[in-house]
């Protein structure tokens, strides 16, 4: 087993992962990257080696394409993980739970707005479009529907004073103002629109979204890399956890091949 790989192979595999760590670097712009990626595609043993090195570093290879390079993501606990605590810290002034939850749900909402139909997520050529106002409006809308439903069941959404973690998620979002001006008349960062703007710019920095010129402020379009990442990893792992919590039905409950079971939370 050990004799199958040389020292050079190991170095090359590690180098490929190093390239993949920089999602803005594209194989079409770097010859060495392109060569390594070609080897990865055609050499099964090299592919295995790369996968194992990645696994050792707490990374997961999601897929590859010559347009996007090797797509990797960090697993929980990996040194390469972007921790929510770190991400939220830059704007966080008070309140732990709600703040981090809002940042997370906003990232999910960005994906949901980018790929509104299951097909959009499945089809490689699809390019989504997303803007701050739409993301915020979509989440608020979902919150409104949930509020109406809670009201029709005569359930109270008021938070027990001694257990803030029992606050309902939609209540937490709806209660946060969408925007208010700071002293210098800019949008404050700890409002929902401020957070959405932050998320979009963060994703754009990583090359997952590209700002659209001529489309006004804060409008972005999705890249293939982002689509792959959401489809292959983010959505699936979050969904699995939801299934484990018993909140939604597993995907196996389908009415036919290729169709998706409607969520029981049908609003």
């Amino acid at each position, binding site marked *: 087993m050990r004799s199958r790989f040389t020292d050079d192979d190991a170095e090359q595999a590690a180098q490929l992962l190093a390239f993949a760590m920089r999602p803005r670097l594209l194989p079409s712009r770097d010859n060495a990257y392109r060569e390594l990626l070609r080897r990865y595609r055609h050499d099964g043993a090299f592919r295995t080696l790369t996968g194992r090195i990645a696994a050792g570093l707490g990374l997961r290879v999601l897929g590859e394409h010559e347009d996007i390079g090797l797509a990797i993501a960090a697993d929980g606990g990996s040194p390469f993980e972007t921790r929510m605590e770190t991400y939220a810290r830059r704007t966080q002034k008070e309140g732990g739970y709600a703040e981090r*939850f809002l940042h997370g749900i906003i990232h*999910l909402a960005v994906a949901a707005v980018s790929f509104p139909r299951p097909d959009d*997520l499945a089809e490689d050529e699809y390019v989504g479009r997303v803007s701050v106002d739409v993301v915020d409006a979509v989440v608020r809308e979902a919150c409104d529907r949930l509020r109406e439903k809670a009201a029709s069941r005569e359930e109270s959404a008021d938070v027990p004073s001694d257990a803030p973690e029992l606050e309902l998620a939609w209540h937490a979002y709806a209660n946060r103002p969408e925007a208010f001006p700071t002293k210098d008349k800019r949008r404050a960062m700890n409002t929902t629109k401020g957070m959405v703007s932050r998320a979009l710019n963060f994703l754009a920095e990583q090359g997952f979204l590209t700002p659209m010129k001529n489309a006004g402020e804060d409008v972005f379009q999705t890249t293939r890399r982002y689509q792959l990442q959401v489809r292959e990893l983010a959505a699936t792992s979050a969904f699995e956890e939801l299934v484990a919590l018993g909140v939604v039905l597993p995907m196996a409950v389908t009415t036919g091949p*290729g169709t998706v079971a409607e969520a029981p939370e049908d609003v």
Partner: protein
Amino acid sequence: MAEIALHTIDQVTIAMDFDAGAEHTKVLEQVKHFVAAQAPDRDDAEHAAVADWVLQRLINVGTIERGFSWHYGLVGDEGTYDRFEFDFKLLVEQSTPDGFSLRATDEAINVLVGALDTDVESAQIAAEVKLDNLIRRGRLADAKLAAEQARYRTVQYGETLRRYLDATRRDVRTVDWERVVPDLLLDALEHIEGRYTAEHAILTNITAARDDSDDPRHKQRAAELVEIVRDCIRRHMQLQKAVQEAGDQFRSEQDRQLFSGEPQRAALHLHGQLLVPLLGLPVGKALGPVYDFFRGAVAPAPPEVPTLPSLVERLLQRPSEPERFAGEVRDPQFDPVPERELFTPEHFRLASEILSLPGGSASLSDLLARARRHEPQVARLVMHRAAHAFNPSVGDAVREHVPEVLIAVPTGDPLHSPQFGGDELWLTKAGVRPVVPGSEEPGTARHEEFGDEISLHG
């Protein structure tokens, strides 16, 4: 202070309509007048400061949620006493393309109307019946109050519908377009129609009351009422337009959002299967899946500083200053390009010798034949100079004191030459007489002279 607060909410509610919110500055301006009326002995700056302070408190600036909460307790199902928080807001700020605006919440409007959580539609009808009655009985003070209430209701109704239409525009699926929406739109249209008739009837009544009345205070109140009811009618028209366009909006949105081909492969419906279920969970429970999504949806980030030694090294690194100059600009050096001489001095000498016409005159064909004996280049030179001699620049020759010029005259025959074509020329020489200063205009006269001389030589 409470009165100013109510007045502020009142101003925001009146200023906001179907599409836009109220502007901070305008609201503050209005409220300032009210404050000034309360305390006329204070100065203008203080009035503005008070108005601003009240507005800030109503938004509750300074808290992260910008809202209010009220603690209350309930005896639960198992007989335990639980404490809850009731959250509410009065004025909310929104971002608009050109800044920020204010909107009054339903709670705030309810405060104005003095009722909590009443059904919008029946409250509206009640308000109008009351208004109608009061006007008929001539109690205009009460009628004004009722009319204002009716206006708040109208605004509130507009808010409900606006939110609803916005949602449709964004995502058709969040809304039941089979039963709920058509019913609601129908109800809304009916409601507007009904209100429109009612308000017009009321308007006629008040106008009559205004015109019939002799009491100036009565007249004044009636005039105010007319304004309020007119405002209501305007708002209803606005609302009606939006409702009528809703159907078209839905159809085009449906075309855009829903129709698509067969699913390519099984994929999740992010909105329906993740976002909405997660929003329905308590925050504590939803955190896990949300974290999972976040971790998966961002790229791996290499730790900025992996080890302590590299951190130290990085901190101690001299900042690299960019060079001010990029370097010297080198003067370009050009290689001399040798000029190619078509004719050598030897060629010129030979050509001049031939053209000196030892025999007085000669035909070009003969001269060319003679030149070809030396070199083809000489023949070309002779040909060239003979052609120039066809119409010699006599004026230049006179000015430069050239003793004689070469003159060519066509003979009418073709040239006999293997190399060149054209007319045969007869070449001869003419002497140039020096210019006599003060003589008449040169050119014409000299031409005559040359004519003579040519005949002499020829």
